[in-house]
């Protein structure tokens, strides 16, 4: 088994893309995230692991302010993207989300054509001057989503008609079409079969060359396969954060070790 084989051991220090400082999240009375500090590097895959309900998805959604849509959710602390506080009053979440793209747990293509799915983001952000421009953006995005060859002949067919794995890669293509700097993925493979999962994981590794990727996953094997950095969350706190190799082979905190060896979770 090479499940625990680590993709990239030669990790060199890269510049920080996102810095979270003392982040607390409350859902009404529930304290979901407790004083989390973390620095996410550029052009790196960072995995968030931890048992169900540990707050890793909540924290991920803080990074592009998707929690804003939930009325009772209250975020305090600072999250800096390129040294700018994304929770600053002057920040419009719409602009932020164009920079910080997101891929969701369940593939959620719009019930429109494949072309329109990818073109939607560039259209609303005015990235294309004309039709030819847009065609080019769509093709580039679909290529980066590693799905171009499969769909190039049926761009006018509905995106919902694709298989689960194709849908998820379409969603990734849709997310990269707006030229984001950070790509957030919330358990992107949990609804996929093993083959589709392998394809998406391969894609994530390619995406690392351009974007800073943050991935929430339930599968420790997946975290080990795709990420360079791993953060372990437990009961709303960030227990341990470090190089993936180090987290999986030589964790500092006993809770991390318990989780990895399957004693908590």
């Amino acid at each position, binding site marked *: 088994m090479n499940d625990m084989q680590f993709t990239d051991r030669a990790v060199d220090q890269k510049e920080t893309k996102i810095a979270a400082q003392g982040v607390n999240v409350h859902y009404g009375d529930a304290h979901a995230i407790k004083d989390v500090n973390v620095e996410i590097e550029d052009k790196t895959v960072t995995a968030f692991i931890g048992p169900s309900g540990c707050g890793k998805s909540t924290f991920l959604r803080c990074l592009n302010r998707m929690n804003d849509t939930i009325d009772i959710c209250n975020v305090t602390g600072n999250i800096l993207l390129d040294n700018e506080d994304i929770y600053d009053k002057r920040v419009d979440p719409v602009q932020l989300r164009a920079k910080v793209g997101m891929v969701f747990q369940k593939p959620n293509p719009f*019930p429109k054509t494949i072309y329109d799915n990818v073109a939607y983001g560039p259209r609303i952000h005015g990235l294309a001057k004309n039709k030819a421009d847009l065609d080019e953006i769509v093709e580039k995005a679909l290529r980066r989503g590693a799905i171009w060859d499969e769909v190039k002949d049926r761009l006018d067919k509905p995106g919902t008609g694709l298989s689960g794995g194709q849908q998820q890669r379409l969603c990734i293509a849709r997310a990269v079409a707006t030229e984001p700097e950070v790509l957030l993925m919330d358990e992107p493979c949990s609804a996929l079969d093993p083959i589709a999962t392998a394809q998406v994981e391969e894609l994530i590794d390619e995406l690392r060359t351009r974007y800073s990727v943050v991935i929430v996953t339930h599968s420790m094997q997946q975290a080990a396969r795709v990420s360079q950095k791993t953060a372990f969350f437990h009961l709303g706190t960030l227990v341990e954060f470090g190089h993936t190799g180090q987290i999986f082979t030589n964790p500092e905190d006993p809770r991390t070790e318990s989780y990895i060896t399957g004693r908590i979770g």
Partner: protein
Amino acid sequence: MSDTSKTSLLALSPRTKQRNAAEKRFRAYGVAAIAIGLLMLTVLVTNIFSRGTGAFQQTFVTVNVELLESKLDKKGNRDLEDIKKVTTFGYNPLIRDSVVAKVEELGIQTDLKAKDLGGILSKGAVGQLREFVIANPDKIGETIEFRFLAQSRVDGYLKGRVHRESIGNDKSISAEQLDLVDQLVDAGVIVKSFNMDFITGADASDQRPEAAGIGVAMLGSLSMMFVVLGLALPIGVAASIYLEEFAPKNRLTDIIEVNISNLAAVPSIVFGILGLAVFINYMHLPTSAPLVGGLVLTLMTLPTIIISTRAALKAVPPSIRDAALGVGASKMQAVFHHVLPLAAPGILTGTIIGLAQALGETAPLLLIGMVGFIASNAPETLADGLLAPNSAMPAQIYEWAKRADPAFYERAWGGIIILLVFLVTMNTLAVILRRRFERRW
């Protein structure tokens, strides 16, 4: 562990038997309930159609009228003003003579006086003749073939509503006249044929049920539906989108939500009296106008539209909103580009059903006086259609059902058939739209 013998799968335990019996009983109840429902529907529909189809057929009498110059244009100069001075009363002898001539021509022996001979025609025949003469003054002096409505008793006799035994005290018809009618039917002078005027025409006075039609009331109903569609749809959809997608969830919005649901259950007559107090007494809008009727029905339809629109919006999976927000769409873009198109079939269905409800509503219209007796022609302009007094289909049906002459009763049933055709069409449209635009995700 008990040491009882092992139970066989082939034998049913008492408990299983009991449960199976209960299930069978319940299925029987269900079938019975459906059967009763279907039976009632069948009775209703056959009843309506057996009573109402008569209204679509009318009895006509074909006679040749000699347009005597001596009666219609004494001066002989064909001056329209002079011709118009001759009232319908002046046309009576012409009509009478035309029937007498027809009877003589056919060689029918009868003791009836000329007045009674003319009496088999509708009282509206004179009006029809006068209109023709005013429109074609050059025809004066000629003899022209006319197709007049027979009076309602003759019509009833042909439809089996009027019998010889039942006309003892009826001043409008006598047994001798019925004998004549029989002979004229044999001669092909009196025929029953399809009556387009019932569908397109206006209401008629108590004396002439044979001439009454539902067409103008239909226009009144249509104008009201325009008002309802034009107001209730945008207001209802805007309110629903705001409440569902934008409004904060707090006590105030909870109260609003409960009140909208309650509004849907308010009896329609309450909306009627509200309309009377606000639109007519306070705002001084014209009585009996389709505009006012439309406003009242809008109030009634709004809750229906809001509730169905919100249900349609709720049914759109949140993942679609997430997807749109995730690529940087604003809240409004997410709603208008993605959520609303997906909810559209549901919204349309709700709207059409709301409109169908409003179309059949009678009580509020009675209160705002939308039962005007409109014997005139259809309104010519849109503004006229909205502001001029009019009736509406259900109100017209109610009016007819109230009148003493059984000939109107038949027309009430006929009106119900037309109303039902409209409602069934609208509901079918709703189903088709829902099927066509239904999307899966």
